[in-house]
Every structure is written in structure tokens, then in C-alpha cells.
């Protein structure tokens, strides 16, 4: 089953390129540490998911590139074509001459409706190339203008038009000390809109990835390219083919079919009031965990620690909350590699911080006119705050 990727804005397009590059390089890696037949099955599965075939044999990424400025898209297209190994479709991109100026409302209320038809047509064309569509991967930033505002709009449209397909938004959580002054407003608007229309939000924090580059990889001058490549590596290790249970004979057909159960139940619970976050949690309580193992000795890997009930909320048994996917085929030349995708309280603190900062700005109505000018009213802000407070409360409740 195939995934159609929508790359939005500067962030989305740069990361998207690195992701496809990582996927392609890995699938064509000769040393897979497995039999030839296994390697061929892996390659074929990866190819079906992410690339379509053209006459002369060069794979074309199943992607639609969207940006309001031409510069980044042109760079992305040429980088891909330059490699000679894979490329983007000639007519798969949409861009304009004028940016959004980091204004979420402009992206959502102006660019979105204005270019809705063109963008959705591009996506539809890409969908038709798939024998079977598993869903969409939308790569975007949370705090920018085009990526986040337009991204929220596009996700809503995808929800309406392709209600049976899954949508996963890959979101880049901005640096805590980011430069954009309204980034917290943008963030809460993005998150609240996506929470309503997307199926899964896969979050990468810039700060965390930056730390990986600095501490683990010892890179001195960390560029965005380094960060994006780390991100791409992580995403690749999640999305490349795996087997789902003991004794399966085929690679999973459902790459996005993680039983996310993203939403801890919202309604019907008494509000416990604003939680004081001074209380130390012993465990980061999870609602779902997915471990992905690749490479040598996967079958003898000891995973008992993940099945400890203390890790999970009281009303869920570990057997329902914990899944493991495995394959012997090594990823990206790493003899052994593991990835953990976790739906847990891990993001409560960062989220709470952003909500708090945004609220403080909102209390003094700072910069609101930029949004009201383009149709995002104070009520919309209040709705967003309410929803996100509910999300924070629900995640906190997992501890009980």
C-alpha cells in the first residue's frame, strides 16, 4: 500500500527531500544482512510505498510539493534530479511568488482557499497513481506561516475528501528560543486544528534533534541539513517495511496503520483543574508504544521491560498498548537499530509551556491584529486554548 507525501513550506520540503533520499538509499543498500530474496522483497515493498515507476526506470517519489515561494522548491527539485537515482514528478509541485510572512492566518484563510483547487488536484493525481492508497504523510512545521497555516488547511481538506484514508502529520516543534515572535500563537493554532482533523501527529522537537547532532554525533557547526538528515533517518527507520507479528510471511501492508489511539478520551471526564506540574511523575505514562527493531538478532531481542504495566495507564493492558515490528533486514547499514514511537505524557511539559506563553501574549492581545486581519478571530484563539487545555488534562489523567 502506498503513502502520498505532502511537503509544505520550507521546512516540509527540505525535510521531505532528506526523507525520500534516506528511504531510497536504504532500500538500495547492498548489505542488508539478509538473504537476497529478503532484500528484494524489502526493496519492492519500500518502492511500492514511496515511489512510482516511470518508463525509463527512474523512480519518482510519491510526493506533492507546496510552498508559497519558489526558491526552496526549486532547490529541492534540482537536488533530487541531480542525484540521478530518484526524482520528483515534473508536475508535482505548486508554488507562488509571494510568501506568507510567518502569518498563520494568511496561510490558513487566504492562501488555503485561494489555491485549494490546484493543490487538491495535484494530490488527486498522485493518489490515482497508487494501486492502493494507505494514506497521507504531511510534513510541515508548527510555527511558521505557510507550512503551519496552509498545512492545517490542507489537512482539513484531506479529511473531507479522503475520509477513509489515514493522515499522519509530521510536525516540527520549534526551538524554544525561536526567532519568530508569534511562533507560540502559530503553534497553538496549528495543533488545535490538526488535533481535530488529523489521525496522528508525529512530533520532532528541534531542540532534541539539535542535541543529538551536538552530543551524539559531535557535529561542530550544526546546519539545518544535519538536523534534517537525523530526522530523515528516524522517519526512515519507522516507515521502512517490517513484519508485524511472529511468523508473518509478508511485509506489513499497512505502513501508517499504527493503532495510534492518539486521543486520550476527552469528554465525560470531570476537569481536574489546572494540574500543578511540580509533581514529579515516576513514569512517563503511555497510552501506546511501538518498538521497531531492525537487523541482527531481532528474534531474540528481550522486550519484557516494555510490557511493564507501570508504563501504561491503568485502564489499558500492556498487550493492547504495546506493539513490536521487526525485520532482519538492517537499516541504513546499521547492524542493529531500534526506534521507539511513543504516545505518552512526554510532550505535556513542552505543550504546557507553549500554551502558557501564548496565553500570556493573548492576555495582552499582543499581535492579535495580524490574525484578525485575515479572519482568525479571538474566539478561534479561545477555542484553541480550550482544546489544548483539554488535551493536556487528558494526558495528565493517564497517570490515574
Amino acid at each position, binding site marked *: *500500500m502506498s503513502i502520498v507525501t505532502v511537503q509544505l513550506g520550507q521546512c516540509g520540503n527540505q525535510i521531505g527531500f532528506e526523507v525520500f533520499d534516506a528511504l531510497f538509499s536504504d532500500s538500495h543498500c547492498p548489505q542488508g544482512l539478509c538473504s537476497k530474496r529478503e532484500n528484494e522483497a524489502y526493496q519492492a515493498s519500500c518502492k511500492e510505498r514511496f515511489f512510482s515507476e516511470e518508463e525509463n*526506470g527512474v523512480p519518482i517519489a510519491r510526493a506533492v510539493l507546496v510552498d508559497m515561494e519558489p526558491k526552496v522548491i526549486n532547490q529541492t527539485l534540482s537536488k533530487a534530479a541531480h542525484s540521478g537515482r530518484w526524482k520528483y514528478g515534473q508536475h508535482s509541485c505548486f508554488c507562488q511568488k509571494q510568501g506568507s510572512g510567518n502569518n498563520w492566518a494568511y496561510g490558513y484563510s487566504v492562501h488555503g482557499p485561494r489555491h485549494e483547487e490546484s493543490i487538491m488536484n495535484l494530490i488527486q493525481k498522485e493518489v490515482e497513481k497508487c*494501486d*492502493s*492508497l*494507505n494514506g497521507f504523510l504531511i510534513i510541515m512545521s508548527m510555527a511558521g506561516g505557510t507550512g503551519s497555516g496552509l498545512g492545517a488547511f490542507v489537512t482539513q481538506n484531506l479529511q473531507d475528501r479522503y*475520509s*477513509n*484514508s*489515514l493522515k499522519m502529520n509530521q510536525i516540527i516543534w520549534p526551538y524554544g528560543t525561536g526567532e519568530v515572535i508569534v511562533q507560540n500563537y502559530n503553534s497553538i493554532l496549528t495543533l488545535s486544528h490538526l488535533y481535530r482533523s488529523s489521525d496522528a501527529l508525529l512530533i520532532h522537537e528541534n531542540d532534541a534533534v539539535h542535541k543529538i547532532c551536538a552530543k551524539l554525533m559531535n557535529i561542530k557547526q550544526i546546519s539545518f541539513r544535519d538536523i534534517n538528515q537525523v530526522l530523515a533517518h528516524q522517519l526512515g527507520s519507522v516507515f521502512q517495511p517490517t513484519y508485524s*507479528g*511472529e*511468523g*508473518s*510471511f509478508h511485509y506489513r501492508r*499497512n505502513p501508517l*496503520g499504527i*493503532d495510534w*489511539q492518539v*486521543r*486520550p*478520551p476527552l469528554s*465525560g*471526564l470531570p476537569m481536574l483543574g489546572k494540574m500543578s506540574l511540580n509533581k514529579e511523575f515516576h513514569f512517563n505514562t503511555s497510552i501506546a508504544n511501538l518498538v521497531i527493531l531492525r537487523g541482527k538478532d531481532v528474534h531474540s531481542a528481550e522486550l519484557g521491560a516494555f510490557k511493564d504495566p507501570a508504563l501504561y*495507564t*491503568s*485502564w*489499558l*493492558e500492556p*498487550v*493492547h498498548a504495546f506493539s513490536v515490528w521487526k525485520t532482519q533486514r538492517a537499516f541504513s547499514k546499521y547492524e542493529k537499530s531500534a526506534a521507539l514511537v511513543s504516545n505518552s505524557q512526554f510532550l505535556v511539559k513542552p505543550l504546557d509551556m507553549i500554551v502558557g506563553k501564548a496565553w500570556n501574549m493573548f492576555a495582552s492581545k499582543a499581535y492579535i491584529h495580524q490574525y484578525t486581519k485575515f479572519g482568525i478571530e479571538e474566539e478561534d484563539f479561545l477555542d484553541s486554548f480550550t482544546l489544548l487545555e483539554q488535551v493536556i488534562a487528558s494526558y495528565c489523567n493517564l497517570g490515574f
Partner: protein
Amino acid sequence: MGRRRRRRRVDPADAARALPEAIAALSQTLPAGPSPETFRRAKFDRPEAAPAFWRLLFCVLSPQLPDGASASFSPEAQVRSVKLALRTQGYPRRALAQLPDDGSQGGRELLLALAWLLAREPLPERLLAQNRVQLGDEMHVCECEALASPGPPAPSVEADGCVDIRHLQWLMGKLRFRWRNLMASQQEQCALLGKLLRRLQRENARLQAALEWRRRELVFWQWMDTVLDACPPEASQPTFLPRIPTPAAGALEPLVRELQALQGELREAVEARRAAWEAGVGGRGPEWSAARTALREAVGQDLAALRRACERGGSLAQPHGPRRLVRTEAGAPRGPGLRAPEVIEALRSREARLEVVLRRLQGQCRQELARLVGALPGLVWILPPGR
């Protein structure tokens, strides 16, 4: 009275069309089949016809390659492969082996080679059978895959009856998710059926072309005669047959004697061993031979029982994998494979056994439910309508 030959009145326009139409039909049945015009150019050994024919022969002679894989072979590799394959099959004309490896020449020789292959065996039919569309008229008989998978985890029953509402909401979410997956799968099924239909249509066209070819091939063979005439005579016709060296008259004698000597030695060694063994065990006497007979009987019975057991589940213990459904005449001799009535019988008996187990488990469930109900006074229990 003899048979009178009737001369059919042939319209000259039809006669002119007959050859290209025959060639077109042939081409449609072959992979990478060239156009009738290319065939004509090949007869006159025009260089532009050569690459098409090298490609054609490559595809025909290496049928195990998947579609499109031939693109990964360089032209030189294709040429060498074709020459080797023809040589292996005993193609007699030397001129083809002498053609340059870059694939730029040789249209006429290749045309002759193609005709030679066509004359030896029903090539179009064989290729069509090999490349037929896998229809999905297949079913699995073995259940190994189903048995190996552990199935969904059994839902745990809470002993105290308290259910966290969050768990219910979680289950609802899971159900909705599965529902959407189902819809997506159905859409996929539709798309694939459409694809299958288009492939079947293409295959039908090829099958019709094969029938056309068989009707018209005479005119092709008449034309091939003219092609052969157009060839310059071969300088010499050395035989391609490998020379079997005739053994010198006396060469075999010493070998035969040596063989006989070795056989004699072997016989002596075996007898010595047997005598030693008999001496070793023969001391037991009559009880030993009685024990031995009893042993033989027991082993024989075990073997028979094993055979019966194998035959019962018997045909179903055969190699796993999908089997194609083929219709045969009622009284036709039995071909390879399973017969449907046997499979149905085996499955029915298995079904009956499983039904028994199911009834027993249902009874146990009912008893358990009754016990639970008894523990909760005031509860009305409405059973679902029985089957």
C-alpha cells in the same frame, strides 16, 4: 474416385494482404514482436531490422525473465545470450554465430533462426501459456498459515465487572479505525479488479492473434522459402555435432576386468561381515528368531497405520501452496492433483469435529454465565435467539 482439388479463386488484393496480416498476428503473440515492415526489411538483410530481431530472440529464448528485465541487459549481453541459447538448442547455421556482437547486423539470419524455432515447436502457444494472467482462480488447501498465526488476543474479562469508561472509548476508537481500514481495502480491491480486467483483455487479444496465426501461417512459410533462397550459399557446412571419440578396441577390456575384480572383493567383504554378525547373534537360538518375527510384525503394523493416517488426511498433507481450479469431464482419467469431492469430504469431517468442540465450549460458556447471573440478584438475562 479420386479427390478433386478445387482451386479457390483468390482475390489478388487479399493475397497481398495475407502475408503482412499473418506476420502481424504472429508478432502479437510474441513478446517484443516487430512490425511486418521490419520482417520485410530483415529478409533483405537491412541493418535497421537487426536490433529488433536480436531483442525478440532474446525475449523468446529467455522466458523466465520478468517483464522489463531485459532492459537491464546490454545489447552485447543480449546478443551473446541469444547465440549461446541457439547453439545449445542445436541451431545448425554457422553464419549466425559469426554475426558481430554489437547487434548491428544479421536481420536475415535472425529471421531464419526465428523461423527455425517456430518450426520446431508451437512457440506462440508455449509463450502464451507461460505468461498467462494469474487469475486468482486458486485456493489454498493447506491451513498451515492459519494455524501458525495466534489470532487476535482474547479480550480479558474483568472479574469485578468495573469497566473504565475510558477503555470503552478506546475500544470505540479502535473499532472506527478498523472500519476505515476495511473501506480502504475494498477500494483497493476495486482498483485491482479493474487492473485484472485490463490484463485479461490484453491476453484475449493475444490469444485471438494466436488463432489467426495458425489459420494463416502457410503463407508465412511460403515466404520463408524465398528468404532462404535469398541467402548466399554457406561456404561449407561443417557439422556442429560434437565428435564422440570412438574408444580404441582394446581400451575397454582392462576396465571391465578391473570392475569384475572389485565386485568380487565387495562380495567377499559383505559375506565375511554377515557371517561375523550371524555368529555374534546366532547364539540366542530360537527365541531370537521368534523375537525377530514379532518385531517385524510390529514394525509392519506401525507402518501400515502410518500409511493409513497419511492417506486419510492424506491428500491434504501434500505440498502447500495455492492450487488452481480446473474443470474436467466427469469420467475423465485422473490427472495430477486433488479431486474436489475428496477435499470437500476431508473438510466436512474436519468441520464436524470442530462443531463438536464448539458445542462443548458453548455449553461451558452458558454454565459460566448462569453461575455469574446467579450471583447478581435482580438481573434479567436475555439470551440471544438460538440457531
